[in-house]
């Protein structure tokens, strides 16, 4: 799909001036220098894999939200905003905020108190090696494949936007990431994510500011959208979800609330180790609880630099954009809306900053993938199953080596995808299949001490299997199965994903409960620090109201609720 896009698109969207090239080049040199500086600090396993567990709530919170703020994410959701309108905001609000607050207030204490180094590590403590191995192996494989897919997709974007050679983009960016992550481990990854956070905001914020000036504010923008696309509602969040046919996504509000809000979002933000690892690096339990809540405020603001540029594209771009799969020569795809808006408003200097933000987002995403892979491989696969007892220095060395090995596998994946572009869709879909059921397994394990070891494994397996089955049926015989699983034949890909996640999570929960009822529970003494009823959780009773995570969790939810009403 992206190869076609590269071939069909105009020669290049933007041309960089010397000052822009300097800005981009400086970024590469800067992150490498920081990586070599941090190498002297990452000496033990806890340093390399968990950044010494000494990050403040702010650093952990920004890294937590940045790990999900890659450049493909930015361009993809800006494109979705152009295609579906403000409905895409659901993935930033109902699809993130409640889950982030839930992670901070309810789940983080268990991850932190159990002193686990990863989500599969928690499953090992709670359920034993079977569920942990299933989760660790699938996470490791899928993470590294996803990294390769993203690497290739970004190289194609660089070709389309800047005219850069695909091989050059893949090798230069991935080797830079490999060197600085192998040097400083999670320290490097987190530092880069914080830098990327600032770059993305300052690189992209001018687009909505200048766009609002050009259109004369929100009302002016809405008027122009109605003028350009008469009869379509692109600017209401919940109203058009009353019926499947009333919105371009073909989704009903039940899919948004239960599929996205309760299954996909909870699964991703609370059990995907790539993001949870950032919070595990916090210096104490209060910081670990605050980090996702701090992140939630920034996450709520991200639509300003992602969704609003997509909507502004509907209002001000002189041409219409089209799906990448159906592109004619000279046309642009939805995913190009952000670079197009960047080129519309930004001249030399600002353009370099915007492009650096995109490159930084890509590199930070790759760093997140390889650092999470290194941790899960070393601590959840290599140590328990291959070499149980070895000095700490050996595991750090293993982490460094498998960072580079993981990176080379990613590069190999990128070249495989280059030859068979359709693989990309399957890899992305496959990754999503594990997330929603895993939430059911982890949550039941935390809240119900009766859940047995066998129940954890079989519930997770059933959830993943049901997800894969639904995906295959809807993919290969959509006319027969889409209306069965997604409740309407009008459901598009994103809507199908929501219902698939919901049913697979429910399958996991039902099977886990049923197996629990016929198997023997673990003794209470083995579950201290792992289960709600057997774990004393500190509640900051002596802290002032403004220092309590609960206070800020409530504030975050209140702001979120007000935003829903404003854009209803």
């Amino acid at each position, binding site marked *: 799909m992206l190869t076609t896009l590269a071939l069909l698109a105009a020669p290049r969207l933007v041309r960089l001036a010397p000052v822009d090239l300097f800005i981009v080049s400086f970024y590469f040199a800067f992150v490498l220098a920081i990586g070599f500086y941090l190498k002297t600090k990452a000496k033990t396993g806890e340093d390399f894999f968990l950044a010494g567990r000494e990050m403040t709530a702010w*650093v952990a919170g920004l890294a937590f939200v940045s790990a999900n703020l890659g450049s493909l994410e930015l361009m993809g959701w800006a494109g979705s905003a152009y295609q579906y309108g403000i409905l895409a905001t659901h993935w930033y609000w109902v699809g993130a905020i409640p889950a982030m607050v839930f992670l901070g207030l309810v789940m983080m204490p268990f991850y932190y108190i159990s002193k686990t180094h990863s989500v599969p590590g928690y499953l090992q403590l709670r359920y034993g090696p079977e569920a942990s191995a299933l989760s660790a192996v699938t996470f490791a494989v899928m993470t590294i494949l996803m990294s390769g897919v993203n690497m290739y997709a970004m190289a194609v974007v660089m070709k389309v936007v800047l005219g850069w050679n695909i091989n050059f983009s893949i090798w230069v960016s991935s080797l830079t990431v490999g060197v600085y992550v192998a040097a400083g481990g999670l320290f490097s990854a987190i530092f880069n994510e914080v*830098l990327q956070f600032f770059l993305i905001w300052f690189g992209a914020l001018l687009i909505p500011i200048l766009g609002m000036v050009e259109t004369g504010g929100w009302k002016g923008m809405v008027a122009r959208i109605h003028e350009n696309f008469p009869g379509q509602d692109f600017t209401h969040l919940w109203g058009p979800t009353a019926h499947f046919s009333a919105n371009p996504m073909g989704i009903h509000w039940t899919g948004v609330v239960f599929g996205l809000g309760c299954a996909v979002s909870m699964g991703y933000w609370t059990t995907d180790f790539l993001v949870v690892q950032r919070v595990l690096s916090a210096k104490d339990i209060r910081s670990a609880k605050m980090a996702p809540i701090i992140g939630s405020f920034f996450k709520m603001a991200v639509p300003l630099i992602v969704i609003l540029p997509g909507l502004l594209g509907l209002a001000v771009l002189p041409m219409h954009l089209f799906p990448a799969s159906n592109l004619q020569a000279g046309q642009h795809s939805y995913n190009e809306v952000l670079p197009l808006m960047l080129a519309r408003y930004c*001249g030399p200097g600002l353009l370099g900053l915007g492009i650096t933000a995109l490159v930084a987002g890509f590199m930070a995403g790759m760093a997140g993938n390889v650092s999470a892979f290194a941790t899960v491989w070393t601590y959840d696969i290599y140590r328990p199953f291959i070499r149980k007892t070895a000095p700490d220095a050996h595991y750090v060395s293993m982490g460094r080596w498998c960072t580079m090995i993981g990176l080379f596998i990613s590069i190999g994946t990128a070249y495989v995808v280059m030859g068979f572009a359709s693989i990309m869709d399957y890899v992305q879909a496959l990754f999503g299949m594990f997330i929603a059921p895993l939430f059911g397994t982890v949550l039941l394990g935390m809240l119900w001490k009766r859940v047995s070891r066998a129940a954890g494994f079989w519930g997770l397996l059933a959830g993943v299997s049901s997800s894969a089955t639904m995906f295959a049926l809807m993919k290969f015989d959509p006319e027969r199965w889409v209306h069965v699983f997604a409740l309407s034949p009008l459901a598009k890909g994103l809507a199908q994903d929501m219902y698939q996640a919901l049913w697979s999570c429910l399958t996991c929960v039902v099977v886990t409960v049923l197996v629990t009822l016929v198997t023997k529970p673990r003794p209470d003494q083995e579950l201290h620090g792992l289960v709600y009823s057997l774990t004393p959780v500190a509640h900051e009773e002596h802290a002032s109201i403004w220092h309590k995570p609960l206070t800020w969790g409530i504030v975050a939810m209140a702001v979120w609720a007000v935003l829903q009403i404003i854009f209803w």
Partner: protein
Amino acid sequence: MTENHHIIPVWFFVGVMLLLYGILIFVSGLVEWPHPPATVLSNLHAPVWWGALLTVLGGFYCYHFRPGRSRP
């Protein structure tokens, strides 16, 4: 974040980056002032005030989080 390893705060690195980029963008905005590029709203000279904003913010971060400065 820095207590155990004595690592330079990440905010200092953020400051260096913003300061350098701010100066570059500000200067390039001044250079192109008489002949702005063919972008929409180029008459607002966004690089000048955006570059100035980055410079001020970067300078503040560099100063406030400079290595060796004692913090409570």
